[in-house]
């Protein structure tokens, strides 16, 4: 097995580079009234003919981009506009390409237009069709969207669709799709793990306001334990409850938040799905991964549907890596962008920062350095 050098995908690197430049410029929260005419001109050019924008309002929910609902003709659409800086710095062109790649295979919003350079609205932007549905029950809704207790009557159906959609995503023959913004890690090497670790280590280095001993120990451990991926799949990167919409009949209408998608090891998504911090207790007190199925059942269903064997060591690596990635976002990026006044969600960022403790404590437990003797 060849050992991979730290490498960050070309377009991810460009995105992070651009952020460092923006960090030194002023940021103004977008104004719907000011966006309208530029949006009409852009969509007119994309769709052909004159486009009239109606009902343009800021959309609630989300912790990343500036989102706006609007109507164009009889179409209900969503605009995703880059803020000054985001809890996850990602590329709209990549998001557009991956949404096109999964169209008709995984339920997801249909994309309409992308401006990866920001030449139309002043910042990179993506327009997609608005999908009906909710991310969680209205009763007992959680602000964070993490740790959702779904309606018991819908749970079984949601679990089946949630698992099937992940299987379909991982089985996509991505070589036949148009993904020019994505670099391809080599199978049977540590590329996939090394690249994704390098990405988030860079974010940690550039965003943290203070060090944390657990993060240093975790990064050292991850570098020492990089696993080889036996197959390369399209990884969602944030596949969990809270990131899909469903209707009253329990039909999943769309998987959301594809901005972290990349080519990598399927264990990365699996480790995300079974992250205990996204789990909730079921009626009998059992832990339900993503509030849907016990962890073992979730993994067994995946193995049966794909015919692939889950490697426990690789799964452990990605479970630890995923908590590292979550901690980077929550401990480092949230405060960096709130303190820099580069986000439209300053209060949310400081609140999400409080979650960092959970992710760091989970890392410490997994690495047996929390003093519990585990």
């Amino acid at each position, binding site marked *: 097995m060849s050992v991979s050098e730290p490498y960050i995908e070309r377009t991810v690197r460009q995105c992070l580079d651009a952020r460092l430049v923006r960090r030194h410029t002023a940021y103004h929260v977008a104004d719907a009234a000011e966006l309208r005419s530029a949006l009409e001109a852009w969509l007119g050019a994309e769709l052909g003919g004159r486009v009239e924008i109606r009902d343009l309002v800021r959309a*609630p929910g989300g912790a990343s981009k500036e989102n706006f609902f609007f109507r164009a003709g009889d179409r209900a659409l969503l605009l995703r506009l880059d803020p000054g800086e985001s809890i996850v710095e990602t590329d709209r062109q990549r998001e557009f390409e991956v949404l096109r790649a999964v169209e008709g295979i995984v339920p997801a919003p249909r994309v309409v237009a992308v401006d990866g350079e920001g030449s139309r609205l002043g910042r990179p932007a993506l327009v997609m069709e608005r999908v009906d549905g909710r991310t969680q029950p209205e009763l007992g809704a959680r602000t964070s969207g993490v740790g959702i207790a779904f309606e018991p009557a819908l749970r079984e159906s949601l679990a089946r669709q949630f698992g099937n959609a992940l299987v379909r995503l991982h089985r996509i023959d991505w070589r036949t799709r148009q993904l020019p913004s994505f670099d391809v890690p080599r199978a049977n090497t540590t590329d996939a793990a090394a690249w994704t670790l390098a990405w988030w280590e860079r974010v940690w280095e550039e965003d943290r306001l203070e060090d944390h*001993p*657990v993060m*240093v120990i975790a990064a050292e451990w991850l570098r020492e334990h990089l696993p080889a991926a036996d197959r390369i799949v399209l990884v969602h990167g944030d596949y969990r409850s809270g990131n899909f919409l469903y209707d009253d009949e329990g039909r999943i209408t769309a998987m959301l938040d594809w901005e972290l998608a990349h080519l990598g090891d399927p264990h990365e998504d699996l480790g995300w799905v079974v992250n205990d911090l996204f789990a909730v207790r079921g009626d009998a007190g059992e832990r339900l991964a993503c509030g849907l199925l016990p962890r073992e059942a979730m993994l067994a269903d995946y193995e049966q549907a794909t015919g692939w064997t889950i490697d426990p060591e690789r799964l452990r690596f990605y479970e630890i890596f995923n908590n590292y990635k979550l901690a980077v976002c929550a401990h480092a990026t949230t405060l960096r962008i709130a303190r820099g006044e580069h986000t439209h969600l300053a209060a949310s960022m400081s*609140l999400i920062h409080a979650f960092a*403790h959970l992710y760091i404590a989970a890392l410490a437990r997994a690495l047996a350095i*929390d*003093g519990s003797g585990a």
Partner: protein
Amino acid sequence: MTPEPTDLLRGARRTLADVVLPALGDGFAIEQLKTVLRVLTHLEAVIDEAYPLEAAEAEDLRGLLGAVARSSDPALSALRETAGEAIAGDSVPGSLPSFRELRDANVVRKRVVSDVIRALRRSAPSAAAVEDVETRLAGLVRRQLDRERRWTRPRRTSK
């Protein structure tokens, strides 16, 4: 001294909750204001803990860096001086450092601790020579996790 910080926070929170929130019609603005109210509620609950928690962290960091400064292991030789500098001159008899002074000093100390961890992981130090450092590092991690839990989830009883 009055008003106490919690008086100011409570006043702001009540006005936002009782007057501003009911007057809002925009869904995004309502969502954000509810988040602001959660932040204020949290801050009211933990603000009195800020200084003692930061001071306790300083104590742990000083203890660890003191052990590094005293260590004879070659793995830590390059860090001995830096560790000593990070804990020098921060105890002026009869004066209490401000919260900001404590914070800034702790940020510097934590950076040195990161270098210590890397040095320990990347070399093969003699277990006996770094025993004090390792013990203090383990204690620092354990107590820091507990402090962070108290700071972010104040209603839970600490271990």
